[in-house]
């Protein structure tokens, strides 16, 4: 009997506690930086697309909501011809981000994506590309990779030795 009265009193005291509610549209909950929300394609420090069209994200996606077509410019730099994410299917698991070898695809702390028309949830490449480096500032895949592209020949990448001339006899 006493415990019942005590619990009633304790519940009554909750009247004077701070509310836990976020008054959502006006007051937003603080989202952590690693929140898995809207998917975006980031750019490298030069402002070029980071995506190299390797299809790893599409392969990792458990609900098959990513579709893309890789292509190559005249200098051998790969990029996606189109890149399409169907957000009505996406489960925001973040596997695509984990699979991405070039930090191109990233999940952002943004969940306010509601649409009246279902078709509007299919995001094309120009919807996905953002003018930002996302969570990995300063990372530039083509500056590190050994691949020769425009304005960067073999051996000119960061932390890369010039190629060894295997035909030469000199040590």
């Amino acid at each position, binding site marked *: 009997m006493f415990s019942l009265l005590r619990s009633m009193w304790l519940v009554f005291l909750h009247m004077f506690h701070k509310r836990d*509610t976020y008054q959502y549209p006006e007051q937003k909950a603080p989202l952590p930086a690693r929140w898995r929300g809207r998917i975006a394609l980031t750019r490298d420090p030069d402002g070029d697309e980071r995506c190299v069209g390797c299809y790893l994200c599409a392969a990792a996606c458990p609900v098959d909501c990513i579709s893309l077509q890789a292509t190559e410019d005249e200098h051998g730099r790969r990029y996606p011809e189109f890149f399409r994410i169907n957000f009505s299917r996406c489960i925001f698991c973040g596997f695509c981000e984990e699979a991405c070898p070039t930090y191109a695809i990233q999940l952002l702390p943004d969940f306010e994506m509601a649409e009246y028309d279902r078709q509007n949830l299919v995001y094309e490449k120009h919807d996905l590309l953002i003018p930002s480096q996302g969570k990995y500032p300063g990372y530039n895949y083509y500056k590190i990779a050994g691949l020769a592209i425009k304005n960067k020949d073999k051996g000119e990448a960061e932390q890369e030795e010039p190629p060894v001339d295997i035909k030469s006899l000199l040590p």
Partner: protein
Amino acid sequence: MINAWWIIGGVLFVLLNTAAGLIWLERRMLALWQDRYGPNRAGPFGLFIVLADTLKLFFKEDWIPPFADKVVFVFAPAVVVASVLMSFVIVPFAPNIVVADLNIGILFFLAMSSLGVYSIVLGGWASNNKYALLGAMRGASQMISYEVFMGLALMGVVVLSGSFNLREIVEAQRTVWFIVPQLLGFLIFMVAGIAETHRLPFDIPEAESELVAGFHSEYSGMKFGMFFIGEYLGVTLISAMVVTLYFGGWLGPAFLPPVVWFAVKTFAFISLFILLRASMPRPRYDQLMEYGWKVLFPLSLLNLWVTAAIKLWLVSK
């Protein structure tokens, strides 16, 4: 004396609006005690949630299951509202605001609140659903057994005031409210009242964690709304009865009119009902019956005997 039709209309208007307002009040109060805000968007302080809820209920499909007993199924929800509203006939809101000044007031109240059990039994039976039937069975046994010592607890008040008439009972409390000499009776009446309105923690006929929704599992739309309103009216009724019988009814310091005193006291008990809902766990069905018959029943008998003995002793002196 005010015209009786005005009183009837006024009481009906106030009660039905109270019952609707309790939808809002309960949700806000529960939220308050659970560190939330509750409905606060629609209208000032979210008051229009009542309107939104009612409109929603009206536009729900009013479905009668093909396996149900149609006539009884439709009839049952009306019984609960009608019987509770009938009980309010004898409640004195102020010295001259009472619909019927019956000299058997308390007996009428007991009779009408017993009729309320029919809505549960008939609703559960007519639904032709095992969970509804289980809920109805529990409701019947709970309400019938708690009815017994609800009446016995009330007899203490009757002995002290020497009348079944609620107005005279209130007048008899001019010197001291009956809560003081009848504390035990008040506690028993309160517990029985909660069980009678089948509110939490004694919501065993509904017990949504065990029986889907108990006796009204099959109800939808405004028929469900009737059970809903009936429950809130029941809460108001028990609060009003507790105030009348134990807390001096309309009596109070003269700076407020009697009706306001009555309303304030009743509101306090309605809030207590909601606090109970916010803080109490539901007892098991057999625990409820055991507690009723083995503890509350002897206690209420004892209360009656002791009260009667003291009263006789005082009279014979």
